[in-house]
């Protein structure tokens, strides 16, 4: 929810989205008829067992792939109708990603890793680096600006990855198991920053997780099982407490 508790503008919407993969002669349905809406200022957690379709749904929401059936709309864009090049541009400008592994460029400093996101959308290096410095300071990494990823702790790397995801001011922030490799203290720190960023500036966030502690940060928790949402979006959702109980 937004800070006022009133749902903001719709940021992303999935309508009866299905994703089918070819596996040899077999067809595998990874996501089956999912409806989902995420509004500005809202952080949604996608939870479910391995193979339930969480990551595929995240990939569909993030324009990393296109649905076999149904539609995913980010603002006015129907992601399924865009060319690969257009989806690449859209991801660079409007979607921020935080991966399970930080996936930072190992030979760029923390500052340059973050600035890279700006350069990918055509911003000057100088301006991108300035923006990156500001974000990294906000993330508590003021003394790590010139460090290579190899010299950072896991939590620091994820904060750099979060800064990279936020640099261009995306409308949608997507995170895939962002704390999976962190201890609980660092996970708490990263999730605090991520949840704050996901709800800020009219942004929406979706986080895929197995971790109840991470799901607890979300405004809504959506269960996926066997490629379907167990409680369709808009229905009665499980509370965090129910989720935590399994």
């Amino acid at each position, binding site marked *: 929810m937004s800070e006022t508790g009133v749902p903001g503008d719709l940021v992303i919407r999935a309508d009866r989205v299905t994703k089918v993969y070819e596996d040899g002669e077999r067809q595998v349905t990874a996501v089956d008829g999912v409806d989902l809406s995420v509004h500005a200022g809202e952080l949604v957690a996608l939870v479910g067992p391995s193979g339930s379709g969480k*990551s595929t749904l995240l990939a569909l929401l993030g324009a*990393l792939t296109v649905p076999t059936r149904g539609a995913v709309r980010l603002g006015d864009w129907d992601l399924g109708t865009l060319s690969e090049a257009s989806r*690449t541009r859209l991801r660079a400008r409007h979607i921020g990603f935080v*991966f*399970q592994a930080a*996936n930072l*460029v190992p030979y760029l400093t923390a500052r340059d890793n973050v600035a890279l996101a700006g350069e990918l959308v055509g911003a000057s290096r100088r301006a991108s680096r300035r923006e990156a410095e500001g974000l990294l300071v906000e993330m508590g990494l003021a003394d790590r600006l010139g460090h290579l990823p190899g010299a950072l702790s896991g939590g620091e790397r994820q904060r750099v990855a979060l800064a990279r995801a936020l640099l261009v001011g995306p409308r949608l922030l997507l995170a895939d198991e962002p704390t999976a490799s962190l201890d609980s203290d660092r996970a708490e720190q990263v999730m605090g920053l991520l949840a704050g960023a996901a709800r800020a500036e009219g942004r929406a966030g979706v986080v*895929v997780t197995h971790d109840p502690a991470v799901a607890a940060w979300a405004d809504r928790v959506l269960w996926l099982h066997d490629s379907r949402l167990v409680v369709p979006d808009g229905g009665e959702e499980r509370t965090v407490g129910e989720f935590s109980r399994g």
Partner: protein
Amino acid sequence: MTGARLALAELRARPGRATLTSVGLALVLLLALSVTALADGLVRGSTGVLRALDADVVVTDEAANHQLLRSRLVGAERTALLMRPDVATAGQIGLVPTSASVGGGAPERVTAVGFSPDAPAMPRDTVDGRLPRPGEPGSAAVDVALAGGDVVVGDTLSLAGEREVEVVGLVDDASFLQQPTVWLGQHDWARLRQAVQRDADYAEQLVGATVLQSTEHPEAVATAITEEHDELAVTTREGAVAAVPGVSAQQVTLGAVVAVTLAVAVGLAALIGVLQVLERRALLTALRAVGAPARTLLASVAVRGVLLWVGALIVSTAATVILAAVAPPSVPMEVRPVIVASVGGISLVAATLGVTAAAWPILSRLDPQDAVAEEPL
């Protein structure tokens, strides 16, 4: 620019790895450059006489078929050809294999070149002194390569152990069939020829080939003269170079060796490029996911390849220059800037194309979806 910056950052961050890769490529490039330098030295050592002349068309008798040593033309053809409107000037040269010794030293195989005092028949430049003047018997200009480069103006030269001439000038890069040349006036050359080829008729004239400066395109002039004179074989200077015994075979053989070596080097570069892409697959996939176009990633691979190749070229050029410097004088290895530039330029373009062509199919097929945790299907 982003791709180039990524490449530069990687090379800066991992200089040891970059150096190792460049040195590996340099070893193959060293082979290519050395063979090219040898091929160039061989060809130049066989054809210096023709390159030293300011002539663009070479005329031999038909039986000689463009070969200077076998041609038996005398001055009559020169006079006749001078009448043509497409011929500016003409001269006569004759070549005789013989031996020479400097200051009583050991005899050395040389080619004695007799020349008429006409522009196309005379070496364009002397590095010291001058050429023998008409009517100045007993004088010669010699190739600086003679006597291991120890010959100087004023030395006395013994030709075929029979005739002594004084060195009045030095010429450079004028050898023939890997032998230094001695440039003589008509009289000295004719007498030397009779001394070394005892069955040859003595004639106080040059017997050999006619060389021309044309007023039109040399190929057109050569064709025109050939059509009008069945008894003559006419070609451009380049044609005469190719007709020097062994030159074509050397060019073809060593050219093939160079081509294969370069192909191996380019293949190696492409392989390294592919391995580097495969090694970074996870990172590149993540970059694709966050919005890096495949062409940006390709640019980083290509720029990295170019920089590594340039590094390899610098190392291999230095090594080739050192190799040429320490090689015995009998090894005709010449590392000319044009050789380095052509091998370097061609290989750089080929390597860049090779790396990009090899890396693109992988980069273009990276699925950004792989950046998120995999779902068991």
